């Protein structure tokens, strides 16, 4: 039995290492739980995190906006599709503000404050943005790229999402559904 102690210990260590590697690989995989739930016509609860407002020290969270539709848009100044979709979001913000039904909320990631602020001015962005410096909120939404957009209803649930560039049609349909 004593002779087997070392091989058994080595085997256990090897299995543990392989298990750890497997877990690590699966943990790094895409989190598609929100996508799957929305695809099943469910409305999963939107995650939240208190993040600093772009260019300010004050923090704000998605939960603070409960009661209104929120169009959450992850963006970055270096991202060409973000620039392409910005006018549609600007128009939507104008409509939501006029009707008092909701707001667009930008979230910058992998971007410096001066670069983001420069694009806010250049793209004439009329909605607030938060800074997700450590990708805290992005990870909760399973977001790995920009742009990504999540339409959240007044109860704080995800009604629609898009992993990529959005257009006016998507926004109109998703916001209409979230308002119902």
């Amino acid at each position: 039995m004593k002779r087997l102690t070392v091989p058994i210990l080595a085997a256990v260590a090897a299995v543990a290492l392989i298990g750890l590697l497997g877990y690590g690989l699966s943990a790094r995989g895409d989190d598609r739980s929100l996508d799957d739930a929305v695809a099943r016509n469910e409305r999963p609860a939107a995650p939240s995190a208190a993040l600093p407002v772009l260019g300010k020290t004050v923090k704000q969270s998605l939960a603070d906006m409960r009661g209104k539709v929120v169009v959450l848009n992850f963006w970055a100044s270096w991202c060409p599709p973000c620039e392409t979709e910005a006018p549609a979001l600007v128009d939507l913000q104008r409509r939501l503000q006029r009707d008092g039904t909701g707001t667009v909320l930008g979230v910058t990631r992998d971007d410096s404050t001066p670069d983001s602020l420069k694009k806010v001015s250049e793209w004439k962005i009329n909605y607030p943005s938060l800074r997700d410096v450590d990708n805290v909120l992005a990870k909760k939404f399973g977001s790995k790229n920009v742009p990504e957009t999540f339409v959240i209803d007044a109860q704080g649930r995800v009604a629609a999402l898009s992993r990529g560039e959005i257009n006016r049609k998507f926004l109109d349909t998703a916001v209409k559904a979230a308002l119902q």
Partner: protein
Amino acid sequence: MSRALVVLTVLTALIAAPPAMAAGKASLIDVEDEVMCVSCEIPLNIAESAQADQQRDFIRAQIDAGKSKEQIKTALVAEYGREVLALPDSEGFGLTAYLVPLALVALLAGGLALLLPRWRRRAPAALAETGEAPELSKAEASRLDEELARYER
């Protein structure tokens, strides 16, 4: 009088110089090989993307402002998050990056502690079993003779 003025000027300049200047000016090459391109998840010195270029511009601006390498890294973390440093998380699964090497070293040390005494016991036992000393090669035998002769002298 003029010599005293020169000494005074040099001393004033040294005192007024920021710590970064004293420590040597940082360079882009020196910084970019120690940080990550946060969107491409590869070292910045090999990254080619719009985001990587913006990150390099940010570093250049910091260098122009006379910041040291450490100050620049701190500024990068403030703007791009901890991921810019390419260090594993200190919580969750990232913790294993620190714990696994320690566990392996402990396992190795434990294994050696277990095996070494056994090996040491086994060698004399094998000798006792045969009752003979291991045979010496010719070279070893002549070297032993020489050593013994020298000792007897």
